[in-house]
């Protein structure tokens, strides 16, 4: 099992897919990388030579923010929005959708599990 950029150990799938196990690399970027070094995307990751692996690692290192670095970047961006007190920052702070979606219904990804309010219209029995 090859090991690319730190902890990531993609398995015995096609490398196009294996590379997407790295946070920050999707199919599109994986395809671009493989095209640059000229590896067939269907080739299984186990068949990679040492040389291929180091080439891939090099390209990722050079062009892409990945894993911890990317996560840090994203959370910094959010922290910045919160810090300057703009609308998007406030939405992040409140844990509500940031991009203008409706919140009367749905928005469960941001709001988390339903909190039932007793006595509210439509609530017949208390769900747990």
């Amino acid at each position, binding site marked *: 099992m090859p090991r690319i950029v730190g902890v990531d150990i993609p398995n015995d799938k096609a490398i196009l897919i294996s590379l997407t196990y790295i946070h920050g690399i999707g199919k599109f970027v994986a395809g671009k990388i493989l095209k640059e070094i000229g590896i067939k995307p269907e080739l299984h990751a186990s068949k990679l030579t040492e040389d291929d692996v180091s080439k891939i690692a090099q390209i990722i290192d050079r062009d892409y923010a990945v894993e911890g670095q990317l996560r840090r970047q994203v959370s910094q961006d959010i922290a910045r929005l919160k*810090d*300057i007190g*703009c*609308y998007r920052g406030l939405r992040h702070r*409140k844990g509500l959708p940031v991009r203008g979606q409706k919140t009367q219904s749905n928005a469960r990804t941001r709001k988390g599990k339903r909190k039932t*309010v007793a006595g509210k219209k439509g609530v017949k029995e208390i769900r747990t």
Partner: protein
Amino acid sequence: MGRSLKKGPFVEPKLVQKVVRQSQMGIKDPIKTWSRRSTIVPEFVGYTFMVHNGKMFHKVFVSEEMVGHKLGEFSMTRTFRGHSGVKKEVEE
């Protein structure tokens, strides 16, 4: 979708004039404005704007990180006082 780069950022021309005039005179008074749609450009850093929210003017001191946002993003238009019957909201 973002705005075409060709056009450059949109700023109310009058507002730019006001900032330019202030910088020539070397003063930094709060500038009252209704132009929530104006982008904050680097020249605005360090100035205070009074941004209308439909009812009153919110004081917005422009810092460097705010460049690229619109003035309206810093002046909330809605008041949310909480739901009825909710005694204590658990903080995030």
